[in-house]
């Protein structure tokens, strides 16, 4: 399974109609937009895609559209994490059936399994399909549940299809424990930064990012990646700082403000499902002024 992930990868938001029902037509436009603006892979639905607010049936319907519309232009991975592990298993089988290129899964929600429990979960998931597996590490959102270097090493030894990690601890020590273990055993393993934390990650072997701001400013994200890979530290820092300001704008009730910002970019994708709020008109206007101040409106594509 030679799937090598690198560069700025996009995890699209989930467009909804005003009554919160799925907007598959806009989803198609969004997928095309991401690919046209340089996405090296598509991965859906991350938390940014409101994964946990969609029914399993809805997730399958969107996943089918993603695979069909992307049509092998870039690899598509399907995020299969759900509250119930049995649902994750079903989503993984479905992803394989519809022709997705990989699956991605976070450590389980709510429960606090032991490290043996985590190992068993990923082995069960990874061996249930004949697709590459991407793991997702996000200790601060899951009460400290995380990938250690040891767990990473054991899973790589056990699973030939374990090829990448979405790393969202954003912590030097945690990152290095995983990257040291993974890259020594499997040099093609892709350490993929969550959000766009590329400047601190690329020198340690980071392969790219799952972009948070890619639907707003794909050019900026791409430039940051290119600058990091070229080792232009000073410029990379400037761009990373600029993206950090954007992240401050969007991280609140993520992805509510991000969807709000897409309105200003001429790419409206509708509301955010409760319990997340939908960005109010005032909030949208505020975000628009911030985007203007940061020069985003001048340098980034408007509309679809």
């Amino acid at each position, binding site marked *: 399974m030679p799937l090598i992930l690198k560069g700025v990868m996009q995890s699209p938001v989930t467009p909804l109609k005003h009554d919160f029902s799925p907007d598959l037509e806009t989803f198609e436009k969004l997928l095309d937009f991401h690919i046209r603006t340089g996405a090296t892979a598509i991965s859906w639905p991350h938390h940014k895609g409101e994964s946990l607010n969609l029914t399993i049936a809805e997730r399958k319907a969107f996943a089918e559209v993603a695979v069909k519309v992307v049509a092998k232009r870039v690899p598509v991975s399907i995020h299969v994490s759900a509250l119930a592990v049995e649902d994750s298993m079903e989503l993984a089988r479905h992803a394989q059936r519809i022709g997705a290129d990989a699956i991605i899964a976070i450590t389980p929600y709510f429960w606090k399994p032991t490290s043996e429990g985590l190992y068993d979960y990923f082995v069960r998931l990874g061996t249930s399909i004949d697709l590459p597996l991407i793991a997702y590490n996000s200790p601060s959102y899951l009460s400290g549940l995380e990938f250690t270097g040891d767990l990473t090493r054991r899973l790589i030894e056990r699973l030939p299809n374990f090829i990448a990690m979405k790393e969202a601890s954003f912590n030097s020590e945690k990152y*290095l424990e995983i990257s040291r273990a993974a890259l020594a055993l499997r040099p093609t393993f892709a350490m993929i930064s969550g959000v766009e*934390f590329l400047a601190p*990650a690329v020198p340690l072997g980071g392969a790219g990012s799952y972009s948070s701001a890619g639907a707003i400013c794909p050019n900026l994200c791409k430039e940051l990646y290119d600058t990091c890979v070229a080792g232009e*530290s000073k410029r990379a820092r400037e761009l990373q700082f600029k993206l950090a300001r954007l992240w401050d704008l969007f991280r609140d009730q993520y992805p509510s403000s991000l969807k709000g910002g897409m309105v200003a970019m001429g790419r409206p994708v509708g509301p955010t499902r409760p319990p997340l709020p939908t960005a109010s008109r005032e909030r949208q206007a505020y975000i628009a002024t911030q985007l203007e101040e940061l020069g985003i409106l001048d340098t980034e594509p408007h509309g679809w």
Partner: protein
Amino acid sequence: MIATSLSLPKKALKVANFIPGLVHTPVTPFTRDYRVDYDLYRKIVQFHLRNGAEALAVQMHAGESVSLSDLEQRQLIELAVTQVNGRVPVIAHVSDSGTAIAVARAHHAENVGAAAIVATTPYYWTPPPSMLIEHFAQIGSAVTVPFFVYYAPEELPGVKLGTDTVMTLIKQLPNFAGVVDASLDWQFMINILSNAWRVRPEFQLLSGTEYMVSAGAVGATSMFSSLAGVAPKLARRLYDICRKEKYFDARAPQEMLAELRQIIKRAGPAGLKGAMRAMGRDCGEPRPPLDPLPAAGAQKLTAALDALAPLRDEPRGW
């Protein structure tokens, strides 16, 4: 934001031109009956100066500051300044629970020749942001030398240092020169620097540990190192490459130091002194309530260090 009328700087401040660089953080040696071993301390200081330290930060947590009496801390800072004799700057760590105690210690440290002061969030208490600002503002304004805040949320989990707090302190304290980061948190580091540089371009981020590559990539200029007591050459190599901003080249020494740190961490709180002993530099055991390294743990640690190829080039003995 708190609008405080600023008293004018007492002297021409040396904030802008003091970049500490590679800062070694020595351990504090104790005799078998737990007294401070001042003679051995001199030897430790000498060792660090001969092995690449561009500055010393004395009685950091690696130096068991919290287990030392106020008098001992004062004696050790005096001894360090005397022993260093102007060869490199000495940064004094003055943290305490009570603001006034830390203030008095900072004042003393400046009087005896410390080049800068560093302080953490207070021990035990979890003050609200306004009182955290007050705590740091009192310590910082007690001195004219540069003042650094040391942020170690894993060691002191009750208090978060927010960007707003840092920005307020910059406004209030002309000598607030930077944050020594032990959070290792990329979002924190990026947020602090991207905001601070807009109002104080010389504001510094200092890496509080040897995790320098990511810190440097987002703007850190200096590195505090306790592992320099074990592997000074490796610490120096990592730091020098990072200062040239050749971060891809720094990955190998970074991974080696990460491995060394994990080996020592697994041995527990006496691991650092255990590793120094394994390198032929016996500094005794930590003071209670920290446990000494048990014999089996020491053997395991020594075996792990022996297997670590990069340590073969490092100095043994004093």
